[in-house]
Structures are given as structure tokens and as C-alpha cells.
């Protein structure tokens, strides 16, 4: 039974629509941003139940301090060679991004997406996985392919949709696929790879395999229903999967508040599902490595899934089709308090005496040359727009394992039409 009441004295309801702190023209100021100290977060046992992760899911696991020291229980204590390999893969990813962004501006391809500022999230995580663990990336983890040594030329062939494109010109640039590299086919549809990764991990467990799955999505994509279904499946079956949420603060023009970040963290959602949730400094390659290593051990010992929120910043535009100057402060990127992942790892290596400025500068030059050489090789196979690089009949192949009559007929129709038109 409802109570009728006089509403005349009630204040009107108001609808809360989130608004980012800084818009174009504003001076970005993160001085009130509370950064937990490096080394402060505890490192639980990998068998600890999800209910114990409340604090860790609201904190920030950090290993590298402001001076470049690796501190605290999460320090993975990597040797100089491993650290240099990590730095190199991150720098190579950035050099590749720079070059391909320019190639798009030169009209050699239709589209590109950089991962600037987020290199650690892909590179360090991949290094902490076994080479045969399956990665289910979103479109901003090109660092996985770079780390696993996938051919830069083939990445570019795909970007150019040329005659050597492994995907035969069917896919939008950067939607790579390489089963041999443990890199699942990228889809334009957001978050679909989340339940797929859980399914892959369940299959591995059901078969008594030892391989695990890792999946990435942005914080914006966590709003998709597939995120929820994946979390539910992952917890129900204790799937051996690492669920990475790359919180780079922006989903195109929408700040993370539109994915719910004003009220909670993304890592904290894990705890509600009964999944271990870690929130880490995504610009700290050692924190990314350590958290992934921890989650991999948890998965491999049948303790179930882990969600890792990588707190980072999308330093550049969403894509080559985007101008972030239209919706966010121009200096937000440089003011971002967690810095640059490459600069921070470099500082650490120098601090350890394992690296120096000269070697770094030389490496940057070498990597730029490597990318340039790869580009030259790829462009020999053609660039987008310079005619068709694949026989047009290939368009009809691979829809099904065997081509059914209606596709054969449509293919023939196309051949006939082109012949009649004199093409």
C-alpha cells in the first residue's frame, strides 16, 4: 500500500551527468591526485580468496618509485637483460606507432591507432606470460605482437591491406590475427573477446592443459554486457584467465566517469563477482609484470581468474580519426602524474647501472631504422589505394569452409559485370 503524501516541500530530483575535470582551454592540475607510494601495497598469496582483495582493488600497486628504485613486495626482481628486453619492446612499439601514424597521414592507409603511454600494459604483461598462453587483445595491444617477435613487416602488410596482407585485405588496419603467435583475431565489436577468452580458458581447463588465457579491454568497454557475462562465467567455473582492464581514462571523447569510475574502481568490480581484483600503476612496467606473473600463477594453480585494472593514460588521440583537442585539456597528457612508462623503466635501468643515456639514444635510432626498413619492405607489397592488391575473387572465400553455390554465383556475376564494363 502506498502512502500518499504532500510533495510540495520535496526538492526536485536532479539527474547527475558526469563531467571530466578539465576541458579544452583548462589547465590540467592533478596536484590533488592521491598517488599511493611505491612498495606500499601488500602482495597476497596467490591462493587468497577474492574477499580479501577489497583494499588492493581500491589502491594502486606500484613498484618503481620517483627515483627509479624498484621497491616493496611486488618487485619482480628481474635481471638487467630481461629489463632491457622489456624496454626495447616498449620503445619498438612506440617507434612502430609513430611511423604508422605518419603513414596514415601520408595517405598510405585508411586508419591507425597508437598505444602511446600504454606500452607497458601490453609488453610487460606479455613477458610475464608463457609464449603459448593465448592473448585476446583489444585494438590497443600491438605491444603483444611486438614482444612475441611477430613480423613488423606483416603487421604493416595488414595495415596497408597489400598483396602480402595475412588477412587478405579483409580487415580494417590494426585488426591483426595470428594464431601461431597466440594473438586472437581482433574484432571491431567491443568486449566480445571477454567471454571468448573465458571460454578458451575453460576449454584449456576442461582438457587438463596448462595454458591460460589473457584478455584486454578498455575501461569504456567494461560497460558492455559481455563484460558482465564474462565475469560471471569466469567466477562460476574458476576459469584460468587474466582479465585486463586498461583504464586509460578516455573512451574516445567520454571520460572514465561514463563507465562508472566516479563511484568506484574497475578493479573493485572483480571483488563483487568473487574474482581477485588488483589495481596497478599501468605506467610502471614492473608493476604490470609482477601483477601478471601473480595472476598467471593463480590461474595455473586452479585458484581462478584475476582482474587487473591498469591505471594509465591515453596520451594521444583515440585514433587517426580523432582530435582530442576537441574534448580535453591539451596539457592533460604532460600533467598526468604517473609519467611515461618508457621513461620510468629507462630511469630504473640507468639507476641499476644497466643502461645509460647514450645507449638509449642509440637504441632509439636503431629501432627507428628497423621500423623504417620494415616499412620499406612492406610498401614493396603495395599500400592502400594503389589498386587492388588481392584478386577480387578472394572476397568470396573464407565466408564458409567451402564456398556454397550462392557465393560462387555472386562471384561469377562480379566477374561477368567487370568484363562487360571493360574493367
Amino acid at each position: 500500500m502506498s502512502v500518499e503524501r504532500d510533495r510540495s516541500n520535496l526538492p526536485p530530483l536532479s539527474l547527475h551527468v558526469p563531467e571530466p575535470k578539465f576541458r579544452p582551454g583548462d589547465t590540467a592540475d592533478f596536484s590533488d591526485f592521491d598517488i599511493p607510494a611505491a612498495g606500499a601495497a601488500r602482495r597476497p598469496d596467490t591462493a587468497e580468496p577474492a574477499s580479501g582483495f577489497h583494499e588492493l582493488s581500491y589502491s594502486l600497486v606500484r613498484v618503481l618509485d620517483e627515483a627509479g628504485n624498484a621497491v616493496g613486495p611486488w618487485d619482480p626482481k628481474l635481471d638487467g637483460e630481461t629489463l632491457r628486453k622489456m624496454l626495447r619492446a616498449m620503445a619498438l612499439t612506440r617507434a612502430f606507432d609513430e611511423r604508422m601514424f605518419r603513414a596514415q597521414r601520408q595517405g598510405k592507409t585508411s586508419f591507425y591507432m597508437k598505444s602511446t603511454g600504454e606500452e607497458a600494459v601490453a609488453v610487460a604483461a606479455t613477458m610475464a606470460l608463457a609464449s603459448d598462453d593465448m592473448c585476446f587483445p583489444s585494438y590497443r595491444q600491438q605491444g603483444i605482437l611486438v614482444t612475441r617477435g611477430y613480423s613488423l613487416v606483416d603487421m604493416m602488410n595488414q595495415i596497408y591491406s597489400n598483396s602480402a596482407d595475412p588477412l587478405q585485405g579483409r580487415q580494417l588496419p590494426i585488426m591483426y590475427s595470428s594464431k601461431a603467435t597466440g594473438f586472437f583475431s581482433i574484432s571491431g565489436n567491443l568486449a566480445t573477446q571477454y567471454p571468448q577468452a573465458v571460454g578458451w580458458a575453460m576449454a584449456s581447463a576442461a582438457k587438463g592443459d596448462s595454458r591460460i588465457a589473457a584478455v584486454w579491454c578498455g575501461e569504456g568497454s567494461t560497460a558492455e554486457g559481455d563484460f558482465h557475462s564474462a565475469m560471471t562465467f569466469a567466477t562460476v567455473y574458476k576459469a584460468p584467465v587474466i582479465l585486463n582492464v586498461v583504464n586509460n581514462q578516455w573512451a574516445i571523447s567520454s571520460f572514465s566517469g561514463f563507465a562508472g569510475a566516479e563511484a568506484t574502481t574497475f578493479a573493485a568490480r572483480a571483488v563483487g563477482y568473487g574474482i581477485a581484483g588488483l589495481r596497478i600503476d599501468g605506467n610502471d612496467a614492473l608493476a604490470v609484470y609482477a601483477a601478471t606473473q601473480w595472476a598467471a600463477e593463480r590461474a595455473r594453480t586452479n585458484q581462478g581468474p584475476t582482474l587487473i585494472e591498469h591505471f594509465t593514460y591515453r596520451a594521444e588521440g583515440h585514433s587517426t580519426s580523432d582530435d582530442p583537442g576537441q574534448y580535453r585539456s591539451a596539457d592533460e597528457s604532460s600533467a598526468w602524474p604517473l609519467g611515461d612508462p618508457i621513461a620510468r623503466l629507462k630511469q630504473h635501468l640507468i639507476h641499476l647501472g644497466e643502461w645509460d643515456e647514450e645507449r638509449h639514444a642509440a637504441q632509439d635510432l636503431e629501432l627507428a631504422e628497423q621500423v623504417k626498413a620494415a616499412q620499406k619492405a612492406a610498401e614493396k607489397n603495395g599500400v592502400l589505394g594503389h589498386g587492388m592488391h588481392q584478386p577480387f575473387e578472394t572476397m568470396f572465400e573464407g565466408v564458409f569452409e567451402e564456398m556454397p553455390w550462392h557465393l560462387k554465383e555472386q562471384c561469377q556475376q562480379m566477374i561477368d559485370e567487370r568484363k562487360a564494363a571493360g574493367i
Partner: protein
Amino acid sequence: MARMNMIQAINSAMEVMMARDPDVVVMGEDVGYFGGVFRATAGLQAKFGKTRVFDTPITECGIIGVAVGMGAYGLRPVPEIQFADYIYPALDQLVSEAARLRYRSAGDFTSPITVRSPFGGGIFGGQTHSQSPEGIFTHVSGIKTVIPATPYDAKGLLIAAIEDNDPTIFFEPKRIYNGPFDGHYDRPSKNWSQHPAGEVPEGYYKIELGKAATVRSGEAVTILAYGTMVHVVLSTIEELGVDAEIIDLRTLVPLDIEAIEASVKKTGRCLIVHEATRTGGFGAELSALVQERCFYHLEAPIERVTGFDTPYPHSLEWAYFPGPVRIGEALKKLLKD
């Protein structure tokens, strides 16, 4: 050989395939311990264990997304969607992922999944237990759509679908799970025990996908149907004494166009019958194909008897359902000169 109704035949197909191939897994809401709300998976978990036959959370996008991931690993999942009316939350995974995976990865990854789902009306199921959404899937390149009309076909087609390396939607006409339905809702139901197609081999056999079945040969008119409607049209033409040729399509994509073309060229007339709503339904595609290929043989406009373009009603079901009266009137029009 054994006597089976359609549920038992479907159950048998899964049992046969699970025994033959350790990569076949069955999953869905209530399919495990309980054996499915229609009993289609009864006994499978007890026989093959919980890691091969398991209950899932109530999330259709999750069920199909997980199945796609299992398929990418190398398994051959047979997910169940409890009612076709509830397949929509999984549309993104089916259309954007399962259907496109082979194409977009240039064969690097594939999606050998078979999605089973009860569909169709005639059971007072109302709006959300009666729908026939096959036209949504026939429109998607990369998916095969299969609909059996008998226990014998159901088992043979399901085995073929599970073995097929492409994603397949396998719609099961729940009105004829227990027996063929002649469209006369006011008469006692028949069961499969008296029907020749209720005789089903216990072991392995398959029916090639993409091949129609000529249920009855005739000269006066070609009737294209599938699922429950095969039995409704058969009974109706026998009552009316029409010498119709009835083609049970069995597979909608890829379609057996040769069988259709040969029949319509012989009879010169074509009636298309399906329960699904008319506009944009699969009947429109059939009509266009027949028109394009058999134009000079046609002696009358192609007729379609379908569900109306309304949500499936509850109490008005028998006015909505394309039953004997509506089929009879369409045949009169088709055969008048």
C-alpha cells in the same frame, strides 16, 4: 533402428557425437544435471561428465561468447539457447563473432559451433516462447541455418551440423518434438511412433547440409516449407485433394536451389509457407529466387502463407498460425486458372 520422437533423436545425435569426438561439449541453461527443459540433453552429463556437459549462468551472450572461445581453442561446442525467443542477447556474438571469425582471420581461427534452440509456435507460447527468428540468421553471411521436420532428419542433420566446421544455427520446431502436427489444433495430437520418420538408427549417420527432401511428389503446385509447416501443408493438401509437390528445405543456408528450381519448373506454381512474420522473412528470399530463376515457367504469382507482421499473440494463436484454412485459400488462388 529404434522408435524415437524428435527429442530422443536429438539427444541421440549428441550422445553419438560425444562418444565419437572428445572435443564435443554440450552447454546451456539447465542442460546438465537436469537434462534440459525439453529433456533433449537427458542422461548426457551422467554419461560424459560435468566437464563435457554443463549448466551455465543465465546469460545468452555469455553462452555463445564462451562457446566461440572454446571453438577457438579447438573444441566443438554445442550450446543450447533455451528458446529461440531468447537468442537475441547473443546476436552480437553470433553475427559479429561466430559468423565472421573464419573470414576476418583468413582461416586462422574458426568457429565450429552448433547452436541448438527450440523455435516456432502452435503451443500457446505467447510472445516469447513461439518466435521463428530464422530470417535474422539467414541474412547473416557466414552462418548456416538448419531446421529439421522429423526425428530421422533431426538426428542426421544435427550430427552433420556438429561435424561441420562452420557455425550452425539448429532450430528445433518444438511443436513437433513429440509428434507431427497437421494444423488441426482441435484434434487429438499424433505421436512419432506411427510415423515412418520416427524410425531412427541408434548409431551414427548423417544427412548432408544443404539438401532438401521431397516429401511428396506432385504436379499441380510446388510447396516450399520447413519445420512444423511441412506436416501442416502435407495434411492440408491431402484433405483438399491437391496434387502438390512438397519440398522440405531442411537447410535454409546453404539452400538446395536445384531441388526448388526443378520442382517449380515442373509445376509452374509455387506456394511458400512459414510461421515467421512475413516482411523480410525467409519466404521473401525464396520468392525472389523462384521469380528470378523460374519466371518463364510460372503460371501464377508466387504465394506466401506466413505469420502476420505482429508479435506472436497468445489467445489469438490459431488465427495467427498459418494453418489449413489460410493454406487452403492460398492454394485456391494459385490454382484458379
